[in-house]
């Protein structure tokens, strides 16, 4: 069990007890005692107490380290001076490789300390490659530790409707995927969009400043149960029922298991689904923009 760039003890407090290290399994009758946990992070967080091996690395050295690990598992040479710069001696890396190879079933959970620092998607790609290549020795998987509620759900639904999980453009009538060009943050920072519908997110609190400035400039519509940072700079805020509390629906757990939600309360507000459905019906009554749709060519 490797946690990389995450702090599950504080950010995913039930992860240890419900899913990973504490549970007893068919081949892990003794629960925690049968498992080895490694934590890789840039600082000693409370999660380090739970770990058998804590590896403190220098910030922004994840990609270098994972790439070195990929070489080491294949018995290839690495440059020792360059490895030392990551904050770990080569012996520690070799110890980690030995532990990984000795495992019967390994899993790497990677958090935002990895995917949101310099290198971004390539850091995640490195972990995924490492896990894929470890399968030459033993069973290994990698899984991202998601930060917000139901991000996995958005990815899963986008994937089965368009074929791509995120960064999808449908302007030409068919899905095109190009993160960096079509991902939300890039579109907003470059000012490439002239309207924005925000659903279950608060970009006003998390985006870089140029993106927030652009959100304030264009017509932004927010659907949220509460007033968020984004609502303050939006033209329209539509209050909706809180999903799981007063609106039913399905959420996807981090491991892509769909979980149905039953509302406990009644809300005077419409659900997100109802609002989007009504917007969609109103849009449908407008003429199509693509030539050949509805038999009309619209310029």
């Amino acid at each position, binding site marked *: 069990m490797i946690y990389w760039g995450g702090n599950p003890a504080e950010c995913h407090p039930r992860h240890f007890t419900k899913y990973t290290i504490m549970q007893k399994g068919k081949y892990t009758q003794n629960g925690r005692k049968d498992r080895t946990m490694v934590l890789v992070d840039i600082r000693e967080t409370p999660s380090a107490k739970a770990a058998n091996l804590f590896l403190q690395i220098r910030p922004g050295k994840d990609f270098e380290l994972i790439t070195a690990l990929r070489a080491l598992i294949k018995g290839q040479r690495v*440059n020792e001076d360059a490895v030392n710069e990551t904050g770990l001696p080569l012996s520690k890396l070799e110890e980690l490789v030995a532990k990984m190879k000795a495992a019967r079933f390994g899993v790497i959970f990677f958090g935002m300390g990895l995917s949101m620092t310099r290198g971004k998607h390539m850091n995640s790609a490195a972990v995924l490659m490492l896990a894929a290549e470890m399968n030459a020795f033993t069973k290994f998987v990698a899984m991202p530790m998601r930060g917000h509620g139901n991000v996995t759900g958005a990815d899963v639904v986008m994937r089965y409707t368009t074929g791509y999980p995120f960064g999808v453009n449908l302007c030409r009538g068919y899905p095109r995927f190009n993160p960096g060009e079509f991902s939300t943050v890039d579109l907003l920072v470059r000012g490439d969009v002239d309207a924005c519908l925000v659903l279950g997110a608060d970009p006003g609190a998390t985006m870089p400043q140029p993106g927030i400035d652009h959100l304030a400039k264009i017509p932004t519509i927010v659907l949220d149960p509460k007033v968020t940072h984004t609502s303050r700079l939006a033209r329209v805020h539509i209050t909706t029922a809180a999903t799981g509390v007063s609106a039913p629906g399905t959420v996807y757990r981090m491991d892509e298991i769909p979980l149905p939600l039953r509302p406990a309360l009644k809300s005077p507000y419409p659900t997100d689904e109802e609002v989007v459905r009504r917007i969609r019906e109103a849009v449908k009554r407008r003429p199509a923009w693509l030539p050949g749709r509805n038999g009309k060519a619209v310029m």
Partner: protein
Amino acid sequence: MITLTLKQQPTVPLEAENICPDVVAGLTHDAVRALPVYHGKRQCRLDEFFDVGQAFQPDGQAGKPNLRTDEATELEIHGDCSRVKWIGRGMTRGRIKVVGNAGMHLGSGMTGGVIEVTGNASDWVGAEMKDGLIRIHGNAGGQVGAAYRGSLAGMAGGTILIGGNAGLEVGMRMKRGIIAVGGVVRDFAGLQMKGGTLVLLGGAEIRTGAWMFRGTIVSLKPIKLLPTFSYSCEYEPSFLRIYAKHLRTLGVTIPIDGGMYQRFTGDTSLPGKGEILVWQAQS
């Protein structure tokens, strides 16, 4: 020569893959003006955004296609086209000159011809190109000559010359061809490179040559290398003499005499047989 002048800045990016010599050649003035471009989700006419120069009828035969194909395949674009994407997509011949900036996907998948940009270009310049020449006088964005997401190989031939700096993942998964960058490139230059040559005259930021399989990266400035690269020797590569001679004809000078090249090989994480040559001037 056909002159296009941007008269109105698009509010959202304009997808204009029809600004391409292959499309324009043989068309009448009216037909060129009516070419479809995509402004966001809306299909528009080319002349809604560009003034199409009249000069294109060399012999004054209005309504007739251009007789001289060599002239009809030359395009000159004026104005800040930094939001005009896909200029010269898949072009096979002719010439495009952008006086100003160019947007994303400039000359992507091109198989011939020449593109010149006097200002800056954006991401994905010459992505997956097969042949031809792209010359950017200013800066370029990321993914120059790269493979699109999910695609196995980037540029398979041709030349990209960039005067200024370039962004992330320059030459990602490139297979053949030459990219030369005058300024500094950002992280992941030559990422997963499969072949070809990347010449970095101004050096690079970090993680150069990450996961490279084959190919050559030449840097004239000392660069930071990944732990998976190892030093092999210091030498004068004879093939580089031929490259230098070729590049000199394109206006790029790389030193051969008065120093040596340090050769690093990697990336052992694959393991790959790529090489990074770092220039060491004789002290």
